[in-house]
């Protein structure tokens, strides 16, 4: 049997460029109203943290990639990227 390692993935999902981001616009306006005039280009997306077990980094990368494609991001309007780190402790 292969030994498994625990990994932690952080997935960032944002709307594709050109897709209307009503949420980003609302947050940008609100920040300005609060006096953060120096702010621009606000985009709001999703952030997913997850733990997974995989024998090696390649496998883990491939699996998270697949999760993004199949569930975490909606490829029609969203794009995603992620980080992968080895989990410390029991996580």
């Amino acid at each position, binding site marked *: 049997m292969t030994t498994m390692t625990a990994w932690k993935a952080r997935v960032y999902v944002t709307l594709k460029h050109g897709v209307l981001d009503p*949420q980003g616009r*609302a*947050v940008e306006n*609100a920040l300005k*109203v609060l006096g953060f005039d120096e702010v621009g280009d606000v985009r709001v997306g999703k952030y997913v943290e997850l733990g997974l077990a995989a024998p090696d980094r390649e496998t883990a990368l491939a699996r998270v990639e697949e999760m993004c494609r199949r569930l975490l991001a909606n490829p029609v309007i969203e794009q995603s990227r992620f980080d992968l780190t080895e989990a410390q402790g029991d996580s």
Partner: protein
Amino acid sequence: MRWAVVVFPGTNCELDCHHVVADVLGQPADFVWHKDTSLDGFDAVVLPGGFSYGDYLRTGAIARFSPIMGAVEEFAAAGRPVIGICNGFQILLEAGLLPGAMRRNDNLKFRCHDVHLRVENAATPFTNRCRPGQVLRIPIKHGEGNYHADRATLEELERNGRVVFRYVAPDGAVTPAANPNGSLNNIAGIINERGNVLGMMPHPEIAAERLLGMEDGRPIFESIVAYVEGTAGARWVPAAAARARSRETPGKGGAADGR
């Protein structure tokens, strides 16, 4: 008395609240735009439901910074009645006028249907026309009504009769099945320490007329009238006193264990 119905961008229950107050109860009522800064001349304030700022970021998160909220805080600090319904409740939470926060409903869906509410404290400005323990049938319609507060806050709410409404079965029993959204302790409505600011997720304004098949929401508005006009018994009913008067106080360990 005069009612203020506050309108934020994206509020959408303002017509309904105004209708109940003005047409059903026959009270003078005005819309107050969120860019206004004064509530002078009003005796009660309604923060209606809806999707202020589209519910973007978090429900109520952006509306709480509207200019009118300063006046709402002063109004509340003066001990005058403020009722926040659904999104209005969420705004009060974000503004810190009520403790806790809302999460998405536990099934992640918007839910629109009747629920049963038990009146846990009938001596507030909002419930003096209800009987203690009375079960009201009033609809909910929200996607984020899953009330959360830390343990200490919850205990404090329970101990001081600040949980005003709880989701229950039609017979009044507190059950998990009667909880439509995952709220801790089946909480549907709470009041501030002083007892003059109420937040509730269900919508009493759509349950105030016989023709619409539901009337249990009307006493909530009538209670406010009675309170303001001084016909509710005492002019001011602090929360602790309310608890003492209520025949039925919530169980010691919070109401999650039923009655």
